[in-house]
């Protein structure tokens, strides 16, 4: 682990307790396992000297909707993320690449139904791939992490995601692990009827997840007009010339664009 990675690790370790606190304040019966930051974020030795972190499978136990009384939904989130030093405009570190897999499981009569699975990616190289995209697909194997974290023996009842067409790449926003956590708070712990304290806790969750910025700043084609203000996903396909990418990146790595498929 190099010095920059150590520094990033300290930021991750600082953000994680705030995330846990915010989620608990939004819904006191919610749970996150594992709880310790040192069990969640693992620095990966990289020959490029990159600040790369694997995010161990984390299980969030939340209600389906904020008004529900029982936390019967298990959401498993895993992935990895690579950080790079701040750009000139913003003092926060930035994302270089990421990949995230998410599996939703609903508890029903002592079994689990796999009700949603998705894989979020970033792709700068392969033709036809929008830079940030989602592929809906079964993540049923993530059930093993629920059983491990909860010392349980849930069986998979139905895999409702198994017939989804995997080759559909939906252009999306940057859905790194922290974006997914923010989404979980918004989807399952917040409603229009939530109390001011819950809204405040959600603000805290967003703040805790905002200690870095996205990867778009180092991609010229996302920073040129009209992409900069249009946001139509047609611009997500434009290709940057490699010289421009290498020039913008403030890296401690090679500056080579890569595919960011999650590794299993």
């Amino acid at each position, binding site marked *: 682990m190099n010095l920059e990675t150590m520094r990033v690790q300290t930021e991750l370790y*600082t953000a994680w307790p705030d995330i846990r606190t915010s989620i608990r304040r939004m819904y006191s019966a919610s749970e996150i396992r594992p709880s310790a930051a*040192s069990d969640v974020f693992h620095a990966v030795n990289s020959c490029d000297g990159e600040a790369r972190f694997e995010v161990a499978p984390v299980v969030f136990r939340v209600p389906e909707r904020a008004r529900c009384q029982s936390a019967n939904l298990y959401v498993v989130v895993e992935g990895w993320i690579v950080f790079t030093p701040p750009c000139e405009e913003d003092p926060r570190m930035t994302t270089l690449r990421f990949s995230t897999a998410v599996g939703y499981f609903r508890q029903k009569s002592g079994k689990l139904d796999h009700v949603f699975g998705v894989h979020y990616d970033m792709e700068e190289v392969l033709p036809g791939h929008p830079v940030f995209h989602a592929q809906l697909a079964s993540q049923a194997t993530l059930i093993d992490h629920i059983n491990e974290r909860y010392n349980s023996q849930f069986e998979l009842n139905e895999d409702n995601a198994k017939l989804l067409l995997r080759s559909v790449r939906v252009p999306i926003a940057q859905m790194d692990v922290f974006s997914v956590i923010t989404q979980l708070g918004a989807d399952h712990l917040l409603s229009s009827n939530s109390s001011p304290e819950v809204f405040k806790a959600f603000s805290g969750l967003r703040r805790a997840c905002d200690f870095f910025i996205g990867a778009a700043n180092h991609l010229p084609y996302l920073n040129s007009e009209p992409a900069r203000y249009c946001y139509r996903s047609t611009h997500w396909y434009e290709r940057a010339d490699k010289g421009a990418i290498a020039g913008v990146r403030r890296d401690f790595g090679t500056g080579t664009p890569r595919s960011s498929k999650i590794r299993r």
Partner: protein
Amino acid sequence: MTEPNPSVVVLIDDDEEHLARLGESMREAVSADEAVIETWFPIETDNFYERLEEFKAAGAKLVISDLDLTRRGLTGSSGAAVSSWFQSELIPVGVFSVKHATMLPSVPELFELRVPTEVDKASSFAVATLRGFRQLRELLDSRRDEVSSMRSPAQVLANLLGRGHLEGQFALYMARLGASGSTVTDRLRGTAVSGEDAAPDRNAMLAYVLGHVLWNLILRFPGPILSARALCAYLATARKESDALAGLFVDAEYLGPFCDGGPFYWREDIDSRLYAAFDGEGGIEFETLGLFNRAAAERLLGRELARHECTRCDGKNGGFLCPVTDRPVCELAECSVSASSWIPAGAEVCRIERNFYEEWAPLLGL
């Protein structure tokens, strides 16, 4: 000029000689302006609860009691009964046992204090406790209006300590406060039933709750604040380096309530110093957090630090403290696990040593 307003400290023991020595040690440790030391040697003809009422009426701010008080025939008297009675009055109580040292667990319930059995250590502990609760109460009273607008005890504590941004970390230590002290919960419930007039002073209750959380959890189980021994583990070094590290990190020392029981250190300030040690340098690689921390501290000190006594890595790694075995551990899976059930949620620098965990996993596991 403000008139001195000494606090009343009550010492209760059925061992007359031990009581006398403890009282003497306390009177040496604090001035008469700071505290009046009252002692009680219970005998058969005493009325147990009347005496407790008398101490409360005298303005007791801290009570230190032996576990067994029956030597002179006062049946029904015990440290547990003293503890329970004063808990309901929101007066901190510490319990010790010289005769039956193994009868008391070393880590007390949240709203009880564990007093060392040696007289000098007991006296130091009592003084740190007295001053800590008093400092906390003074801080609360000096910012009464501000505190009344705050929405959580963690927010109050973080702001009182001048570190509002650490609220989230402190909040994790308080995740299950309601399940930690039925007596305190009863007081809260009582206010709901009886109405506002019967409510105890809110700052008194806050000082009582936050004082115990700070003294019994946050300062005991390292997270945002490190004790001297936790600092040694964090820096992957041996305990004997404590004095050298105290000199090195004097600017990071925690000076808030209960600091007399220290030294304690702000971890974020320690981190800033450690990163500054390598500022602007490239090509530096470390396998674990502990290795980096020690290397940075060694650079700041200008010499090597002693290794701790871990048989797995020969004292090379570290970075975390096992609160069960009281030894440094590292984050590598073969060394330790987080075992969240038995470590307060905010104690990010605590991990359970793997060997111990393997033996007790059915109990210590998630």
